[in-house]
């Protein structure tokens, strides 16, 4: 027993030493910048005044300012709406297309690659495509609307439509990712499981809802989390299509942090925004994982 314990200890030590270099690199690459971000958020760092870099006289000032900053609070609400709709729509459309492509007809097999195109385009190209579509002067869609006698407002400058316009563009760009992940998950479902359900009299809808989707629950969870994290990082579409406007209708938290840091040099304040954003992302991911029981022992 003692010998076994000693062996186990030696084994743990060996593994620790093997992992140490990788952990050290990981710490430098990820934890150090994160720590610096948190430390900076406790200072009023402003690039126009270098003396503010290590000023810790009021370490919680930035966080107190955030609580009363209407633009920040509005940006959280805009972020919540953007994330809810983009993740929801991308999951629904992605699952729908994946189920369709899983039918494995030759036509759909050929179409698979076409559906992936939006995802592989550089974000700047996607933004340009949608900018053209949303600009009444040059948009083929608006020419069509005009020919049909429809008076459609300029979507990206209308406060009621600007956020839906961003959601539509973001959904178009990223639903292929969820589609691809769900399709990969669907192709791991054992055929005998589906046969058994059919023998028991389940129709297609019941097979999908009661067999296929529960079986790929883990995949759906990962896809949803990926998209949620990415939705919080939404930037190019907002930067190029609306600049956060009109007013602050499409100004998400990430964009507000960018403005504070890069337009006004308030790095301390911007770091505080980013820390709140990171904390919120981690909390949301944790809640989602707990709610769905993903990763728990079956």
């Amino acid at each position, binding site marked *: 027993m003692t010998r076994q314990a000693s062996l186990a200890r030696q084994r743990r030590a060996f593994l620790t030493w093997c992992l140490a270099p990788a952990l050290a690199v990981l710490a430098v690459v990820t934890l150090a910048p994160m720590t610096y971000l948190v430390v900076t958020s406790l200072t*009023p760092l*402003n*690039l*126009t*005044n270098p003396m*503010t870099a290590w000023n810790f006289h009021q370490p919680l000032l930035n966080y107190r*300012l955030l609580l009363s*900053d*209407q*633009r920040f609070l509005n940006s959280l609400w805009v972020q919540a709406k953007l994330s809810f709709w983009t993740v929801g729509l991308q999951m629904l459309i992605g699952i729908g297309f994946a189920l369709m492509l899983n039918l494995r007809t030759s036509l759909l097999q050929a179409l698979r690659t076409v559906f992936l195109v939006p995802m592989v385009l550089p974000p700047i190209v996607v933004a340009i495509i949608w900018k053209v579509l*949303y*600009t*009444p*002067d040059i948009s083929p869609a608006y020419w069509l609307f005009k020919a049909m006698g429809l008076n459609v*407002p*300029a979507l*990206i*400058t*209308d*406060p009621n439509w600007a956020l839906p316009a961003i959601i539509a563009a973001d959904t178009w760009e990223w639903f292929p990712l969820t589609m691809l992940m769900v399709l990969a998950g669907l192709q791991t479902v054992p055929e005998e499981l589906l046969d058994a359900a059919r023998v028991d009299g389940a129709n297609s809808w019941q097979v999908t809802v009661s067999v296929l989707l529960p079986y790929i629950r883990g995949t759906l969870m990962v896809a949803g989390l990926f998209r949620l994290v990415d939705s919080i990082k939404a930037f190019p579409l907002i930067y190029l*299509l*609306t*600049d*956060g*406007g*009109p*007013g*602050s*209708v499409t100004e998400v938290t990430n964009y507000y942090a960018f*403005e504070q840091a*890069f*337009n*006004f*040099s*308030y790095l301390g*304040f911007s770091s505080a925004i980013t820390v709140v954003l990171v904390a919120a992302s981690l909390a949301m991911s944790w809640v989602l994982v707990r709610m769905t029981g993903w990763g728990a022992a079956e």
Partner: protein
Amino acid sequence: MAIIRMSRRSVVFTGAGAALTLRAPAVLGQAKSPYAGTTIRGAAFSLPFHQYLKDYFPEFEAATGIHVEFDVQAFPVYNQRMDLELSTGGSSYDVAVLTFTYQGRWLGAGWISPLDEFLSNPNATPADWEPGDFVGQTSMRDAKGHTYGFGIEAGAVILWAARGDLLDKAGVELPKTLADLPKVCEAIHDKDNVAAWTGDNLHHWNWPPYLMDMGGNFFKDPPRNVTPTLDTPAAVQSAQLYTDLLAKFAPQGVLSYTFDQAMESQLSGRANMRNQAVTWAIPLIKNPASTVKNTVRFAPFPSGSNGWFPGVAINGFGIPAGSKNKGAAWEFIKWALSKEMLAKLVKDKGYPSICRRSVIQGEPFKETLTLNGQDVGALYLQALERASDAGYMKYRTVPVFPMVGDKVNRAMEAIASKQLDAAAALKQAEIQAADDIKKAGYSIDL
């Protein structure tokens, strides 16, 4: 055909001279400049001055032996990158465009090198270069009188109509007062499928002439007191007028228009009137793609109840404090903004935004800017001098202007898109601006 007879001796001398000229421009340059062999790096945003000037870089390089390289970016990207670059005190750039939006901030932070040492040294700056020839604020000075840069481009706000013929048909003229402006728009709107008005999304530049015409200002007493004054009755009234023009009389989607898009809406004949810097009016006549060449009309920016305050913005060349080649950089600036070079830009390229009085008052400039029979050069100089004499552009020289400008942009969009009324939007802008100014370490009266 003329036959040129040359003696054997002259052939030999000419050949030798040609060989020297071809083989050794750098050597000659070295004789002329102590900075020969230096490479200077410049940073600029994409603007006509740079486009035109770069064609002459080889001349400068041949004359001085200084090699010039420039990085050019879009305006917003340039401001962001340069802001970061200057804040590090880096030596990446020797010459930079001091943009009108950020120059107050950059000068205030000590990120730009003063030029006084060069200007007071007759070896570095000959007397005939005449720094005093730059009109008013086009030589960029701080409150203590130190000079940091010289204008490469002055934007002086005027009013113009792309389709003057539609004004004639409606029996109206370009308005002389702000009170008449909406009336004229009403009279010509949607005539011949042309929107009466157009504009771009740089509201913190376009709106202040309305604000000041009606008796308002950005700050209480800039640059001494930067307490924002964005929610005054004059501000509310002028914002209402300004946003009404955009909401009622401009093409659909105008709130997202950039400079170019606004210009394009006029070039293609889809929109009629606009107020902006004169630079944006010239292409309506000079651009081959323009459909409105013969119908463009110009006028001074309208006056208001408080007087006449056309906006004037200067972008200029300066030397970053971290530059390691300040002497060579000054040689370049001196050359680029010499009377001779600016006169050449007017003559060869038709460049309209000159900052030197002697060039503006010269015949070639007048010829270039006499457009459709109107002396636009006079309108330009009139606005430049008005801003210099009255000193009302000081609000742009304060370091917190970019932050407050952002609040104004958002407020104007909120009003024009009917999210908030003018009073509420400007109250919100006032509160947010005050918070940001305090964050920057300024004490204000609020």
